[in-house]
């Protein structure tokens, strides 16, 4: 059989008995590499076997550090050729041996898109970036020009071709990275949490763009994601990993049933809603959920026809106590003598230079945040969320308007690693003030650790402690604590830890403002949601009100039930009348 035909006939990805340890994972012996050794945390991958047929759209699920990224790296040749380490087993991509071939050779059959688009752009202009893999392959200019044009049209980015990459938004950059991965017409495309830095609009667009490419071009997709509710409906198959092994491989619906039993942190909100309400089967997306509800004679937007309360009886959900109060975290209020307002801005205008010209990023914002209040600041990329937080913290200067922060303010920016400079936690936070801050974030036990040895969530807590240190009056928090996109790349278990931390801060009297794209996260921690659009406040109200009143900035439950004020699975299940929230 000719090689080309053999390549076409081969599975897009065939992994067999793959075990892998990174070079810094400690000494590894032959016996330790044996799959029969059982769980061993030195391994990123342990005895992984999986085959993807051509044209499949597979979703790779699992908690942080479960081995998703390592599997993707093995499929594109970065593991072991770039990262080193010890490896056993075989990986074949479209018939090519990925362990014998390097990433350069594999680039002809596999494309890889990483989490952070900033780190995967190497050229100055968009056209050059997309063209680079073809140039490296030695394609003639005419062929390159056609391929660039076609992939740009497929991804709806021809208008970006003439721009420089430093003028693009995160969503645009991610599309350019995807274009560079697709331009060689690979058989397999690997994506590692590509939506983690995108707003809900751009994230949804990217997932459905992948589905369209999968259907029209026949590209096999292997997508690692934490926000399963966003992409489960687009997938043909789900592969779940835990501690470097594959623990589930099947259809999305079967996956939900498995997650319900094995790991509820992997449940989608829709599945949780149905599970609480006792409805079968579990839905893989909004459309599926609505169809199942109709089959159960429940019309979305109207509540159940029989056997449950009408929609108006969901009224208590709209004025339900805040999630923090439900969980009993609000143990005390600020001192009566202290101001109750944490921060206030009036008619705030901020101008930033974007490209050659200055632009108004914030346009007459009026906002007041009370102490003890938890506020989610939402909006698409570029809406002005980060700029508002930076202006409150004094990092950006307003051109007009008033800002009043009643007391101290702590801001944790998008990259917690920027705060970590020294090689010992105690050196970052010396003295009693530092110890108090460490205690607040629950890291006093790690005082002698190297920050680089902490988990992602612990590093984030440490960075927050650095921002808080010296800004507390005894156990009392600063008036305002702000976090900018703290859930990037976080699994749900870590997000729940963060919710607990935020609620703890609010309970001690801090007004907490969190800029986030994650509507499900906002629905859990926030009492109030402020929605920004192009520098102006376009909605400001209770989380239940704002997160149930739209499509993109609405929770999955809100999109399914379309009942005002119903945003969480617990509220939804109560509205459906089948089960009360816990």
């Amino acid at each position, binding site marked *: 059989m000719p090689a080309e035909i053999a390549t076409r006939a081969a599975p897009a990805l065939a992994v067999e008995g793959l075990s892998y340890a990174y070079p810094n994972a400690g000494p590894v012996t032959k016996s330790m590499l044996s799959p029969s050794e059982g769980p061993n945390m030195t391994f990123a991958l342990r005895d992984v076997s999986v085959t993807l047929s051509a044209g499949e759209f597979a979703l790779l699920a699992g908690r942080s550090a479960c081995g998703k990224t390592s599997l993707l790296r093995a499929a594109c040749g970065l593991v072991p050729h770039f990262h080193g380490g010890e490896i*056993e087993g075989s990986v074949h991509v479209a018939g090519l041996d990925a362990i014998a071939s390097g990433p350069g050779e594999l680039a002809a059959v596999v494309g890889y898109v990483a989490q952070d688009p900033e780190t995967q752009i190497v050229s100055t202009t968009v056209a050059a970036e997309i063209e680079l893999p073809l140039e490296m392959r030695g394609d003639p200019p005419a062929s390159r020009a056609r391929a660039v044009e076609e992939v740009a049209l497929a991804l709806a980015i021809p208008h970006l071709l003439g721009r420089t990459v430093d003028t693009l938004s995160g969503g645009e950059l991610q599309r350019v990275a995807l274009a560079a991965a697709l331009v060689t017409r690979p058989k397999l495309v690997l994506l590692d949490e590509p939506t983690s830095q995108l707003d809900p609009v751009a994230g949804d667009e990217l997932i459905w763009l992948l589905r369209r490419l999968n259907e029209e071009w026949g590209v096999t997709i292997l997508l690692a994601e934490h926000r399963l509710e966003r992409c489960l409906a687009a997938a043909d198959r789900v592969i779940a990993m835990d501690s470097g092994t594959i623990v589930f491989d099947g259809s999305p619906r079967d996956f939900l049933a498995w997650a319900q039993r094995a790991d509820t942190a992997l449940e989608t909100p829709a599945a949780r809603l149905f599970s609480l309400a006792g409805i079968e089967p579990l839905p893989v997306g909004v459309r599926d959920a609505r169809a199942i509800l109709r089959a159960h004679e429940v019309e979305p937007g109207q509540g159940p026809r029989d056997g449950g309360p009408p929609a108006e009886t969901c009224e208590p959900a709209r004025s339900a106590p805040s999630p923090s109060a439900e969980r009993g975290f609000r143990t005390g209020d600020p001192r009566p003598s202290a101001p109750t307002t944490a921060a206030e801005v009036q008619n705030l205008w901020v101008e930033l230079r974007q490209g050659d010209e200055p632009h108004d990023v914030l346009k007459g914002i009026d906002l007041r945040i009370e102490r003890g209040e938890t506020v989610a600041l939402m909006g698409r990329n570029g809406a002005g969320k980060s700029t508002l937080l930076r202006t409150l913290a004094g990092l950006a200067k307003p051109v007009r308007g008033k800002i009043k922060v009643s007391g101290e303010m702590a801001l944790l920016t998008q990259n917690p690693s920027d705060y970590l400079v020294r090689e010992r936690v105690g050196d970052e936070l010396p003295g009693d003030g530092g110890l108090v801050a460490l205690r607040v974030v629950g890291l006093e036990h790690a005082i002698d650790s190297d920050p680089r040895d902490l988990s992602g969530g612990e590093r984030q807590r440490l960075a927050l402690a650095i921002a808080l240190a010296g800004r507390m009056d005894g156990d009392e928090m600063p008036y305002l604590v702000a976090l900018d996109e703290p859930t990037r790349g976080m699994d749900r278990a870590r997000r729940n830890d963060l919710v607990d931390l935020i609620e703890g801060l609010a309970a001690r009297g801090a007004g907490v403002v969190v800029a986030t794209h994650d509507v499900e996260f906002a629905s859990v921690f926030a009492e109030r949601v402020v929605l920004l659009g192009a520098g102006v406040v376009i909605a400001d109200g209770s989380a239940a009100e704002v997160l149930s009143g739209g499509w993109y900035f609405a929770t999955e439950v809100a999109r399914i039930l379309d009942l005002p004020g119903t945003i969480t699975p617990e509220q939804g299940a109560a509205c459906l009348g089948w089960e009360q929230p816990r």
Partner: protein
Amino acid sequence: MRSPFAYTPRPGPLQAASPGAAAAYLGALVAVAFLYSNPLVLAAVGVAAALAGYSAGAGAAVRVALRMGLTLALLIVAVNALVVSRGDTVLLRLGEVPPLGQVDITAEALGAGAVIGLRAAVAMLVFAVYSACVDPDRVLRALRPLAGRSALTASLISRLVPVAVADAARLRDAARLRGPAAAPLGRAALLRRLMAGSLDRAVDVAATLELRGYALTRLDAARGGGPGHVRMRFKNLPQNLRARLAAPDTLRGAASSVGQMALPFGLPASYPRSVRHSPVAHAGSKSRYDGRFYCVGAAVLIAAIAGMILGADSFHAYPAIEIGLGAGTVALSALIVLAGFAPRRRDAR
């Protein structure tokens, strides 16, 4: 914030020209600046560069380069005046100034310093226009077949410099946001953190370059056996980098690591041979404006050389300032100023 010197695609002839044509044109202006000491000619080169920048839409780059260049020029004038006491026209006697000794400020030293400063400012101006108007991707593409390893280094630097600038801005912000009880940050700690972050970024960019096909497999010798169910040990590039960062001699380690990073990608192993030998690989980089820039560049250079032969570069600072302002010098200066209009679009006139 974007640097004014960063390349911005615009629909102008200078941006459309091939890197060779743009380099020939702007290189001719720089060459004149280094060939001549006559202030009139140097000023003409400066005017031509400024006109070229404005014509090409790079006004911001011209303004910033002028500010920086004139500041540098003033510094040079001051230093030259202090360290050189030659010249007939003493303007100020400062007496004994340790460690310079007897210092006399002379008009001639000021003039000589001004010429050196003007030359530096003009060179900065031309490079600013080049940086803002010539697509670095096209330059690198032109360089790759000739010097693959240098092109790779340039690729990494051209990507990592703006990233490092952005990282530095973020780190400065994070330093400002540290609580008063957190350990204060010195510049050395910040620099070390920036270096560590930049090298991590470099590893990411290097990985992307590998995925784009810059490198072919190179570890056959390192493998313990053939493919299949056998255990194999691979060298690890990123860990080497991080190990070096952990060492106290960070700078030496970093330099060494960057060197190591470049090695695996260099010619001849990594660069696709088909590109190196393809006669049509760079046909797409030509432009209809190339002829204009080659001609103007050649005209400027020929006129400058002819002018030198005919004595148009008459300038002497010592013992007394003598500036030749003959017809040849004026004509050459006028020609150079006219050359500044080369990047203008014809339909815009």
